[in-house]
């Protein structure tokens, strides 16, 4: 039999039993849709987390005080256990590192902000002019902190958008004098509203020069030093150089921890990638179930059409022709199911994206391809047995069953 004839014959056979066909197509499409939607969820979670991390800055290297990780008990440590604090001078020294493009010290505390009789508690970040570009913040009104000597902070502040709304309403904020703790500061800029970003809500943040913050909180230590490497490739180099310089400054002791955003990102990426893969595996089980259902349906079809198979044999059909006709039918059921399932899955992912706009629920290409090809493969694989059974029927017996 010619290929187009085989396909047409299989199509007619499939459409000749609409309920049976619809059920197996449905089963297959649910399987494929499950793969598409579940991997869209998994990969969406991965993208969401990666996106959140990327938003804190690019090529970021973060220095925290204290040694993380344990090296076992060391008698030397027992004597000098208190780690040295990070200072503004430590941060300043890092500006000389060749692999580093920008450095921002960060001191953090809470204080009260007041203007025009309104008062609220805020988080205060003490830093320098480069803090805003390193963290990828945008100033929508006025400008950021001035470029100046890090040890001589002028009395200025950049405020988050929510603070601006609460204190000033519709009135202009830039240029106004506010009270922060016991200081009077001039508002020089307002940050673009960003929303929640990794635990620190920038909309409710007040940024002041680092020396001012340290004076307010009566401390000379830093919470973090944010370092931006020149490029993605320069991150390991920058990390090593930063570590080296701080070690020198701290009399040869590695009492700081340097983490890279890349490392965190890679960990999450790997973790959530594995999660997506696992979820895809679970969804693949439904594909296998659908494949078995297609096999059942085809076995029923062989029984239902025993007389027809006998007739085809009497009319001169070879075993191969009959096998191909039934295989083509199974392949058709599963491929139509796969396509319908793919469309359903994309629809589901679209609905997810509509419902949760921040969540990038796009199914990854590999999952779509794997899902579709698994559907086709299982359909064919489970179609082989019924097709062989059909081809092996004894024509005399088969013809009697009509």
């Amino acid at each position, binding site marked *: 039999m*010619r290929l187009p004839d085989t396909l047409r*014959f299989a199509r007619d056979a499939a459409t000749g039993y609409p309920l049976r066909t619809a059920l197996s197509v449905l089963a297959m499409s649910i399987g494929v849709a499950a793969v598409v939607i579940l991997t869209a969820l998994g990969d969406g979670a991965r993208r969401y987390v990666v996106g959140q991390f990327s938003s804190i800055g690019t090529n970021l290297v973060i220095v925290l005080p204290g040694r993380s990780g344990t090296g076992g008990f060391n008698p030397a440590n027992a004597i000098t256990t208190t780690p040295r604090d990070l200072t503004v001078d430590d941060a300043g020294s890092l500006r000389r590192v060749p692999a580093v493009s920008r450095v921002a010290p960060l001191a953090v505390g809470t204080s009260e902000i007041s203007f025009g009789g309104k008062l609220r508690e805020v988080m205060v970040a003490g830093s320098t002019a480069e803090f805003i570009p390193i963290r990828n913040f945008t100033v929508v009104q006025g400008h950021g902190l001035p470029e100046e000597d890090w040890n001589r902070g002028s009395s200025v502040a950049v405020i988050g958008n929510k603070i601006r709304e609460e204190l000033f309403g519709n009135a202009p904020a830039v240029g106004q004098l506010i009270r922060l703790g016991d200081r009077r500061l001039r508002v020089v800029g307002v940050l673009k509203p960003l929303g929640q970003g990794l635990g620190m809500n920038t909309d409710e943040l007040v940024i002041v020069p680092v020396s001012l913050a340290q004076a307010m909180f009566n401390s000379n230590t830093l919470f973090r030093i944010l370092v931006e490497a020149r490029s993605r490739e320069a991150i390991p180099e920058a990390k090593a150089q930063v570590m080296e310089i701080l070690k020198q400054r701290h009399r040869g002791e590695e009492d700081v921890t340097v983490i890279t955003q890349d490392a965190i990102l890679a960990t999450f990426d790997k973790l959530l990638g594995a999660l997506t893969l696992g979820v895809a595996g679970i969804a693949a089980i439904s594909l296998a179930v659908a494949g078995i259902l297609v096999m059942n349906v085809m076995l029923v079809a062989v029984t239902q059409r025993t007389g027809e198979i006998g007739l*085809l044999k009497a009319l001169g059909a070879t075993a191969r022709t009959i096998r191909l006709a039934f295989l083509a039918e199974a392949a058709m059921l599963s491929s139509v199911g796969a396509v319908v399932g793919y469309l359903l899955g994309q629809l589901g992912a679209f609905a997810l994206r509509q419902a949760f706009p921040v969540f990038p629920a796009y199914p990854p290409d590999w999952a779509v391809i794997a899902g579709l090809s698994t559907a086709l493969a299982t359909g064919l694989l489970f179609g082989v047995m019924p097709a062989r059974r059909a081809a092996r029927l004894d024509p005399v017996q088969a013809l009697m069953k009509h």
Partner: protein
Amino acid sequence: MALIELAGIERVFQLGDSEVHALTALDLSIGTGEYVAVMGPSGSGKSTLLNLLGLLDRPNAGTYRLEGRDVTTLSPDEQARVRSERIGFVFQSFHLVPRLTAAENIALPMTLAGIPLKERNARVTKALAGFGLENRADHRPDQLSGGQRQRVAIARATIMQPALILADEPTGNLDRHTGEEVVNLLEGLNASGVTLIVVTHDPTMGARARRQIVMEDGRVDQDSAHAPA
């Protein structure tokens, strides 16, 4: 030359513990263009004979020569080819594919044989006209009368221009009038040179054949070709 030559054919069925000899030591020769009626009581082996002649079944012993060629030793695929090209079947219950139209049913043997669509269409059009089914081409079997269905089946059996037509009770499911029409049709085909073998219970139909073979217990009991004249 004889179209069909059977020599020493045995066909044994295993029914539980007992063996049933459906055909025993059968020798038969049928010439090209003959019109043969095979008759006999149920269980006499006439259906088994027809299945053997149609290469749907294999004998346990003996040889079957079709057009001088030993077909018992052929592989299943080669036998399928012989069925496709040389043999047409007409069944009591028509055996039309319910989801295909009359035209598609008639074209089915050509479709299976891989004949191009264009030639198929030409031949089907001719066959539809020849069997008076022109305005039934797009009807499905359930939209046809019994007589029309059997005409479609006969058109299908002849579409590959076989040398041999095997008809198993072709009028069994038809009333007398349409049965008569169908027999006329088959006899017309025979007149054009096709060998026709009909299995029937109906003595009047059997009597119309030029040669009658009466089977009994897997043997040929009477054969009018060898009857003392």
